[in-house]
């Protein structure tokens, strides 16, 4: 049966990257506990629009936890208080009547705020462009079963490849490090036979690009993996460190 709650929202509003931002508070009543968190924000925006005010801008798209677009920092946690899910998968039944909910954008030097809760994550694309691929052109690939890969290796590679590129790891890290993101991609290819040819070059190039883009250093606090909505394991970072050192020895 449908239940509703009333909530107080404390939301970060900011016009642009160079402009100062501030928290604004909003009262929102009769929110169905079956609604998703983003549907709750839709309700708020509808009310703001009815008053002629500009809606709160937040990135979102698939609303089923896979596109990686939604990126809200809720009550001190990237993607909110529930582990292993994205913001769009969070439901209002996780909150109580009368709760105050604080909503902020990802905060990191490498992710400048565009408007309100929307940030620019272009730096992630740039890191991938540095080497997050196998250099094979379309056409001419050998038969897919020509190269057996053990189920175990394929499964671990899949766990690394699960990263949705949302940036929660960076937002969670006190240093704003992108190590979990970079290591997930480096790991996927380091594990698979397809990635061997460019293994060293890839680790070097992606780490170099990451450093150039203003991300912080990793101090192994593990906050990234704890807050990752896809539970990408911390062991990826250990693997990246090994890959990077091995690559350095090859220089």
């Amino acid at each position, binding site marked *: *049966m*449908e239940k509703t709650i009333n909530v107080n929202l404390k939301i970060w509003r900011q016009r642009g990257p160079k402009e100062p931002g501030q928290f604004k508070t909003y009262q929102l009543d009769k929110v169905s506990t*079956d*609604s*998703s968190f983003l*549907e709750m924000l*839709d309700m708020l925006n*509808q009310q703001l*629009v*009815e008053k*002629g*005010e*500009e*809606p709160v*801008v937040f*990135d979102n*798209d*698939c*609303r*089923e936890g*896979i*596109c*990686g*677009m939604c990126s809200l920092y809720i009550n001190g946690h990237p993607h909110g208080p529930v582990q292993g899910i994205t913001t769009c*998968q969070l439901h209002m039944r996780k909150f109580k009547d009368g709760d105050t909910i604080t909503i902020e954008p990802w905060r990191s030097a490498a992710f400048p705020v*565009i*408007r309100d809760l929307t940030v620019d*994550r*272009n730096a*992630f*694309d740039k890191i*991938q*462009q*540095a080497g*997050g*691929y*196998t*250099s*094979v*052109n*379309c*056409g001419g*690939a*050998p*038969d*897919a*079963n020509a190269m*057996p890969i*053990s*189920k175990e290796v*394929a*499964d671990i*590679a*899949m766990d690394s*490849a*699960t990263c949705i590129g949302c940036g929660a790891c960076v937002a969670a890290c006190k240093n704003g490090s992108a190590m979990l993101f970079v290591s997930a991609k480096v790991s*996927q*290819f380091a594990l*698979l036979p*397809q990635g061997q040819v460019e293994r060293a070059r890839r680790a070097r190039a992606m780490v170099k690009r990451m450093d150039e883009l203003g991300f912080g250093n990793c101090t192994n606090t593990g906050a990234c993996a704890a807050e990752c909505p896809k539970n990408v394991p911390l062991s990826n970072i250990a693997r990246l460190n090994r890959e990077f050192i091995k690559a350095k020895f090859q220089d």
Partner: protein
Amino acid sequence: MDKMIDSTPIMKDYADMESVATTTIDSKIPEGPVAEKWTNYKAHQKLVNPANKRNLDIIVVGTGLAGASAASTLGEMGFNVLNFCIQDSPRRAHSIAAQGGVNAAKNYQNDGDSIYRLFYDTVKGGDFRSREANVYRLAEVSNNIIDQCVAQGVPFAREYGGLLANRSFGGAQVSRTFYAKGQTGQQLLLGAYSSLNRQIEKGTVKSFNRREMLDVVIIDGRARGIIVRNLVTGEIERYAAHAVVLATGGYGRAFFLSTNAMGCNGSAAIQAFRKGAYLSNLAFTQIHPTCIPVHGEDQSKLTLMSESLRNDGRIWVPKKKEDAEAIRAGKKKPTEIPDEDRDFYLERRYPAFGNLCPRDIASRAAKERCDAGYGVGTGNAVYLDFKYAIERLGEDVVRDRYGNLFEMYEMISDDNPYETPMMIFPASHYTMGGIWVDYELQTSIKGLFAIGECNFSDHGANRLGASALMQGLADGYFVLPYTMQNYLSDQIKVPHFTTDAPEFDQAEADVRARIEKLMNIKGTKSPDEIHKRLGRVMWDLVGMGRTLDSLVKALAELEEVRKEFYSDLRVVGKADDLNTELEKALRLEDFLEMSKMMAIDALHRNESCGAHFREEYQTADGEAARNDEEYMYVSCWKYNGENEKPTLYKEPLKYEAIEVQTRNYKS
């Protein structure tokens, strides 16, 4: 909705439309037996030499499976590619949400699969409303897709021996679906995105994010550029090229509630339509049978539960109406209904395919039971029960196969599917119809191509599961990069275009005027409010079961929604600034046009086929009654101006390799 509407004027307007058709449609299907057409085509098509490729510019709009694979492959070949997406990164395109898998005719399972069988299943699954030659080519290149993706490092599921694993999907009797957990779309898209990134790094592809196409620019009858709105700054920008490729996805959000992402839209198709590209088979919209039912008014989207669940889940409703009523009233639990009082209606009606019958059939059967009063939940839901699979396989095996989907279900519905059956209901999911293209994937405008879901080409009246990913990648990796060269080969002497041409001035002025108009309505309703109203009209009257009356009524209601839009829309904020309300309003305006065309197409097609079920055309046992005599053609609609009737052209469909028959999933 209860208003009495006089249907006569609308009927008079649309009933005699066919008589207008005169032009013959040239689909450029190559000569020869179906199995040799693509080979012959490739052997004789014109190519562009490497030195000339770098002098040719190509715009690709969209970065889903089709867009990203086309942009990267054209870049690898040496063309200059400009690639656009509305999201913050190419990796977010909605292809990413596909869960189940991708089909290919590898026959790795030794279960009798072949290119011909995949071709046959797809044509039959599409209820004989797709083009044989295109579908055969699709089946032919399906195997290359798997090879290419594995070479990219896509971590497909594997068996203990290290070889690739497969599973079954609806409409097939073989296991030909390759998958990566429940995230196949994501992994394939990330594969294409990685190839795209490689080309961006090399400089052959320039990537433009957070840009939305608002018009296509035609110069001397050829597509030569696009006008886009920068979604961060609100600036209107111009881009020129020798050819334009649309890879902009489907129009399923015309129903407002759908499994599509919030940003999915049919706008590029409507822009092309207004400039002369035909729209085809718009009535063919896929309603996916296994989605989580609607919970309330504030809902923004529906979540799909993968079709793979139908491998082991059994679908049922109570046999007795009083049980259904008791469940709806909360007085009974589904687990209290004994087996003999459960109606496994798919197994009952379709013994040969059972719970794995095609999507259109499964969706309609669910609606039929709910309409008859046997629905559970709000009345619009049926059960998908894993009790039997857990008894047969054990909970661990079920958890291993579907664990992540079960978790997702529990998160949304707050029910534990290990203990109580899931509730599911059909929802708008995919659009088989779209922009008309010929065999070369070129639209009726020269130099304008359409690939992936936004074209109409391969799925006929119904798409089989795991075939959308196949088509997107087939078009982008293996078809378009070839066929485009046939067009571009005589463009090599055409110098790089600039955006100074008067046609660009005009197109930009039109876009600005359109935005101005919407900003100045200054009414009281937000785009979402009007979109919800549109969605209700479409779902109730142009949804799973349509009738002559409902469609006539729909056209009248759509006119009302349109009036409300142009008189009472409110867009807050400014035009030359980041403005999410303006983005929604522009897309909604195009959905209004698209919805009207969907209703017209459904109204004109006096038959039932695939996903298009006109209730007055059904067999005695409630199956779709096709009318091959009169409707075995692709409808091609040409735009004639804002308040003018569109013209219908017909592309006849010929079946040479497959004998046309009534679809049978019973025996």
